[in-house]
């Protein structure tokens, strides 16, 4: 398997307290330097709770946000220009809110034509043909093309969003919470469609979600994000069954599961650290039952073999 997407020290910080001129008052590190490799045909799941930086990461990957540090490589070629159109042909994005990702004043046909015209310069007849092909592959009827977004349900709109991403013919798709706005009975339809498309078109997915069960069900590997850092990466079947980072364990135990008694897995009433005033050392230490003095002194590095890596001084036995 070859790496199609490689992130090397990719990081993003936002200035806070901007002034009209001169330097900002401070920086919030939304994403700490991240190294990740995604193989051809793989689905890499990224889980984390709100504020962990997963959406910022996704937006950097498609060029909607310029990274503060680090590089993105696609098929070995660095992608460092911030031109979304360049990104667009290589990597595409499926949005969380399917309705608001469609311009309310454009027909679906206009939405679909934009990438075909701007990225691939197809003429009218070619566009017509491509749209038919794509719509067939996402099980949408062509009569939808002349309607406006508000006429669609969430599930249909998300299929349209996927169809638009496919129109760019990028081989990598960033799926940013693609089903969390949908009802459970429709969720499964969309997830299955994504699986089919991946097999048929040889796509590579980065699947971002806060829903552990969904991520586990669709991913080959999963990366767990906490406070802007990857704290654990491993195979989907292992990571929640036998977590090594205490945070992953906490997540897995918090998810409500039929047949498991209710318990607060965390005795302490704890919260995320303040991003403006991040703690020294491991960001999880205040919530961690295994924390020692060492955890407050240095930031643990992501270490381990290729199959399973964890950023913790005192990892659990997997």
């Amino acid at each position, binding site marked *: 398997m070859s790496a199609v997407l490689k992130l090397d020290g990719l990081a993003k910080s936002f200035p806070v307290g901007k002034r*009209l001129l001169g330097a900002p008052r401070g920086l919030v590190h939304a994403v700490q330097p991240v190294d990740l490799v995604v193989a051809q045909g793989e689905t890499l799941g990224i889980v984390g*709770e*709100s504020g962990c930086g997963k959406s910022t990461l996704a*937006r950097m990957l498609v*060029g*909607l946000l310029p990274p503060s540090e680090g590089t993105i490589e696609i098929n070995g070629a660095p992608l460092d220009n911030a031109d*979304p*159109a360049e990104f*667009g042909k290589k990597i595409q994005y499926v*949005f*969380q*809110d399917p309705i*608001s*990702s*469609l*311009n*309310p*004043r*454009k027909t679906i046909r206009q939405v679909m034509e*934009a*990438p075909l015209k*701007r*990225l691939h310069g197809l003429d009218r007849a070619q566009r017509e043909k491509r749209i038919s092909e794509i719509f067939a592959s996402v099980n949408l009827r062509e009569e939808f093309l002349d309607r406006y977004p508000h006429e669609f349900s969430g599930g249909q709109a998300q299929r349209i*969003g996927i169809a*638009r991403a496919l129109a*760019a013919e990028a081989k990598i798709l960033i799926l940013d919470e693609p089903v969390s706005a949908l*009802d*459970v*009975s429709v*969720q*499964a339809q969309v*997830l*299955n469609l994504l699986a089919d498309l991946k097999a048929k078109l040889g796509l590579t997915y980065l699947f971002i979600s*806060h829903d*552990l*069960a*969904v991520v*586990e*069900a*669709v*991913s080959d590997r999963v990366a767990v994000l906490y406070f802007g850092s990857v704290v654990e990466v491993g195979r*989907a079947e292992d990571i*929640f069954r036998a977590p090594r980072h205490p945070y992953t364990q*906490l*997540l*897995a*135990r*918090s998810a*409500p*599961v*039929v047949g*498991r*008694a*209710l*318990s*607060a*897995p*965390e005795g302490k*009433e704890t*919260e995320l650290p303040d991003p403006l005033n991040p703690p020294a050392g491991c960001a999880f230490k205040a919530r961690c039952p295994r924390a020692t003095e060492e955890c407050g002194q240095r930031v643990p590095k992501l270490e381990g073999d290729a199959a399973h890596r964890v950023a913790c001084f005192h990892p659990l036995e997997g």
Partner: protein
Amino acid sequence: MQFLSLIARNRLAAAGGIVLVIVIALALISPLLPLPDPDVTDTANRFLLPGAEGHLLGTDHLGRDLAARLMDGTRLSLAVGFAAAFFAAFFGAAIGIIAGYFGGRTDNLIMRAVDMLMAFPYILLALAIVAALGPGLVNALIAVAAVNIPFFARNIRGVTVGLANKEFVDAARLAGLGHTRIILTEILPNVIPVIVIAMSTTIGWMILETAGLSFLGLGSQPPQADLGSMLGEARGALITNPHTSIVPGAMILVIVMGINLLGDGVRDALDPRLRSGALTRPMAATQVRRKGPVPASEDAEAVLELQGLQTQFHVKDRIYKAVGGVSIKVAPGECLGVIGESGSGKSVTALSVMGLVASPPGVITGGAARYKGEDLVGAPYDHLRRLRGDRVAYIFQDPLATLHPLYKVGDQLAEAILVHHKVGKAEARRRAVDLLKQVRIPNAQSRADSYPHEMSGGMRQRVGIAMALANDPDVIIADEPTTALDVTVQAQILSLLNDLRRERGLAIVFITHDFGVVAQLCDRVAVMYAGRIVETGPTEAVLDAPAHPYTARLIACVPELGGGRRRLEAIPGLPPAVDRLEPGCAFAPRCLKAQDACRQGEIPLEGPGAREVRCLYPETELKSEGVA
């Protein structure tokens, strides 16, 4: 076309439009009418009253024909007003779109300049411009347009910032569109209605402003006269010959009134929120228009009993049957889970109990909601109010939106106590702090002085729970209380709720879409689909062996943690729209087992003992040993 018919449907707007059309038509054809020359003076015939020979509206202080001058002045005032509005809208919108779209430093610099202009009471700026350029109609036009540019710029910028952060703009960027194209094809079409609204509501204002400058003698100069300068010239003779003032003044009033009426109509027609009725004020209690008979109480033990409850939304000529006859019972100390997808009617059911469904458009049309045997549907408002929060309390979904942003949480808690109990402020405060402790908020004493925005989501929801507990209610209705929270926080909140209910013997109705949550917290569960309960029974029994095909397939399509990578069981199709329900089972179109019989008539919710199912061909045969 639709737009025009919308305006026509608004009678006031249509009236305004007609008045305006007549005035404009008159002003345009007046040169063709047999009117005297407006500028010919005839001092012998000055101050003739309306109706005088050859002078329909009389004459002014120089003996000029008022009707002719009025038509001339109207034409001039309208032209200047519209031109000023157009220039202000054009430049203001251009500035606003550029600032809003590019953001950052561009935005900052432009908006500081705009703020600077808005720091003047606008007339000072207009006066300064006229002072510099000299009095005259064109200069007055320039001044009025210029002082209004900042208003447009600010307004349009605000809208553009909202649009520029929308996901469809990102999508367009990824589709390879450049800035110019995005502004022209993505932003502008969405901004134009706002520009039109802003213009239609300010044209009247601009006509008043230009007339004002002319009135002061700074606008049109003699002999040319717009309505304002006619009024200004007539002022000297106000007391002796008031008709020379009333004629132009009334005309300004008629024009501006017509424009404002029409402008309001345009705004109503273009603003999607007004169209969907989203700006209607919900009443203090949901409207009740019960048709059928009120069922008699069946279970004296139940603390809460819904019997065939029906709640509908009446939007224009459509009727959405959100709750189509729901019957549930909750015993003291029991936790009932109500589970369903969005649009299944579970939240509306919960809100109907205490008349909290927004109304209009909500109407309770049938059934009963009994608290300890007493029907609350249609109960006098004051009685309902006394029970709200005291005997039956609610916990809502998004704790940031459901707490008042401007009151301290301690005060909000104290208020919940004070509306039901005659206690002193200090006592209420002491109890509020106590409540915060009971929901395990650290440093409760100082936390009571926090505002909601200073707390995390989990802490806010604890406050929400504390508020529900404030008066030791018998029933708590929790409407998706953990949906907006992260999993680790959700686990904390659920275990807190569970502890509290066991300590206090609370009855809870727990609305959710998550089977895992139901399984962990609830004794019994009711599954809703398209406004009705399709299955109910003890939680474990239902989850282990669901009887309704919908329940079974819904459970199957939710991935469960620990299942590893797999293909999910999807349910084809979509839930039905509740304004067009077919007879028979609402799930039939999506059900693999559906027969012809499923699409006919009413299918009852029935079963032996504690389990009931609304299905002709259930997945498992319910037996009477299912009794809990």
